[in-house]
């Protein structure tokens, strides 16, 4: 065996910068684009595809025309400027019809109403989305749906006041019932509110409307369209489907047979049937079942079914998260004496919802895009409803890409924001709950 030479270091070596091949642009290129023969091939294929896309769309985009009164005029301008064979985008259609894409046929003199509602939406959701916003603003969040309802559809303010009063009475019942435990509180609250709405609300509303006709001019549902329609249906369904989905998920895991069976039946039925079928049900079938002459607003019907649809999917996402939680969490909550609802609210759901954020946001995004399907029940969604309407005008007959790109961009803006917010939330919760 070789003898070991003893060694002691007396001077410590200073740190030196890494060689050029380990840092900088060249290193990055080699590591990410040219690390293996397959990678080289893929890189060149990718570059070619990008080149092909850009070379075909760039001239079309560069030849864009903004100021024109018809597609024909656009084409004439393009031919004059870029030669007879040139193609170009005719954004003039957007310039001419943007208000219909955004607001449908909402009366122009009342356009401040949807704009106000949209602006206030951000105020209302801020305290829900960001914990740094003052909690007091949550009161506005609670009032917002009714305010939006009134501003958008107009009429006297009393129906909304009656709805709010019902919730107030329900809250009173909830507090009175609280001494009989969570279940007592919920049942008494629901009962009080329902009783108020069924019995005295309608006559009271008529009386008040007759005495104090405070209100805005009415706008009917068939004047809604474009993104106003998509956002109204989408935001409403998002806000309603989350609590409903959570309740369905809890019901599906309940020990009580009847509740479990109802929830399973509901979820499986809704998931098993295409949304379009449900929308047809909303527009046609409900008319058969409701007493003749009832005016059950089409947007409300669509809203309800889109909510059901999203809720069924959210229920399954949340159920997955619920079963992923260790049993010990339920047991610890039980052992501390927390009742079912408190355990769910304080221990189980905060953890389960955190796990289900990506799934829930995917459901929301899918649902928001699916609001375009309302075109099949005669509503003017931005993608097809409004575009078809615009193309029916002789001036814009034959225009094809531009409206779709415009609508697609706006959808992307909404959905990408949702997705970024979800990432922010996940990061934040990860930091909080190491």
């Amino acid at each position: 065996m070789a003898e070991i030479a003893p060694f002691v270091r007396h001077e410590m070596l200073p740190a030196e910068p890494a060689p050029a091949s380990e840092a900088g642009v060249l290193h990055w290129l080699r590591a990410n684009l040219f690390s293996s023969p397959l990678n080289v091939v893929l890189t060149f294929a990718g570059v070619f595809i990008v080149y092909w896309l850009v070379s075909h769309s760039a001239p079309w985009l560069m030849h864009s025309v903004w100021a024109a009164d018809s597609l024909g005029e656009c084409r004439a301008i393009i031919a004059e400027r870029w030669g007879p064979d040139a193609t170009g985008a005719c954004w003039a259609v957007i310039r001419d019809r943007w208000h219909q894409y955004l607001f449908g046929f909402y009366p122009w003199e009342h356009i401040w109403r949807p704009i106000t509602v949209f602006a206030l939406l951000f105020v209302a959701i801020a305290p829900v989305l960001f914990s740094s916003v003052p909690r007091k603003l949550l009161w506005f969040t609670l009032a917002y749906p009714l305010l939006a309802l009134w501003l958008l559809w107009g009429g006297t303010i009393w129906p909304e006041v009656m709805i709010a009063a019902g919730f107030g009475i329900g809250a009173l019942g909830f507090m009175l019932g609280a001494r009989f435990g969570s279940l007592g509180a919920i049942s008494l609250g629901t009962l009080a509110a329902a009783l108020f709405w069924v019995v005295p609300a309608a006559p009271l509303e008529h009386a008040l409307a007759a005495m104090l006709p405070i209100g805005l001019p009415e706008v009917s549902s068939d004047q809604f369209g474009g993104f106003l329609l998509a956002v109204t249906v989408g935001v409403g369904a998002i806000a309603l489907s989350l609590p409903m989905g959570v309740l369905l998920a809890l019901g599906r895991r309940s020990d009580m047979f009847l509740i479990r069976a109802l929830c399973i039946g509901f979820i499986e039925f809704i998931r098993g049937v295409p949304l379009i079928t449900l929308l047809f049900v909303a527009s046609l079938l409900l008319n058969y079942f409701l007493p003749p002459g009832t005016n059950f607003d089409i947007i409300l019907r669509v809203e309800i079914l889109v909510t059901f649809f999203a809720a069924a999917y959210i229920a399954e996402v949340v159920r997955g998260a619920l079963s992923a939680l260790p049993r010990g969490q339920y047991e610890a909550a039980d052992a501390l004496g927390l009742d079912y609802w408190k355990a769910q609210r304080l221990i189980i759901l905060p953890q389960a919802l955190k796990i289900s954020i990506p799934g829930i946001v995917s459901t929301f995004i899918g649902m928001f895009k699916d609001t375009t399907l309302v075109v099949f029940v005669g509503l003017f969604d931005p993608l097809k409803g409004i575009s078809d309407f615009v193309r029916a005008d002789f001036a814009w007959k034959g225009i094809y890409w531009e409206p779709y790109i415009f609508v697609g961009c706006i959808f992307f803006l909404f959905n990408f924001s949702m997705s970024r917010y979800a990432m922010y939330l996940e990061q934040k919760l990860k930091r909080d709950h190491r």
Partner: protein
Amino acid sequence: MSQPQFDRAIDRSHMQVADEIAIQISNMNKWYGQFHVLRDINLTVNRGERIVIAGPSGSGKSTMIRCINRLEEHQAGQIIVDGVELTSDLKNIDKVRSEVGMVFQHFNLFPHLTILENCTLAPIWVRKVPRKEAEETAMHFLEKVKIPEQALKYPGQLSGGQQQRVAIARSLCMKPRIMLFDEPTSALDPEMIKEVLDTMIELAEEGMTMLCVTHEMGFAQAVANRVIFMDQGQIVEQNNPHDFFNNPQSERTKLFLSQILGH
């Protein structure tokens, strides 16, 4: 398994056992489907008594103590805790649960809440204690288990031994009259076992009624009034620790002790 040495052995000679009854289990039977997991359990626990339950894995130790706070339901016989009989009546169950603290093998802290919030949650929501008061109580018990400085951290940031001590503090914040421990040290690294056992010994010294499922025989010898040996869902032998370890009567007990003490 080794027998840790304890700084404090308890002088039990002059400590009189209160004759008030904390838990009374009579002719209790439980089945999981067709499997008869607990058979004719009879056990009376006096207030202030400290009972260690031992027995091979699968013998029904966990199931038995989980029946005491109704995490598991028994099908026959009677369980009376603190004068309240456990039936399907939810009111009674909630009452018993808020009087009985439980510490689990895997701690079961709530990972989304801070240590302090873990400790104040049940007092605030079950006992309706004002937040400030609940926080003071929580800090008091966190000091007792010697981790007040961790109050604002999350469970995931603590070592296993620290987490288990938080779990003990969390139970104590409900001011329980009875504490149940289900193998509280089995999931811990050896160097952390002692800190948890020390906490439990301290609790025992203060006269808490305790039922501990544990294989720490050193702990049993140091603090228990009584050791219960279970096998196949039955209580096979019970005795004071001295006689239980030095003079076991049943063959099963002898076999178990020889295995666990490694003689």
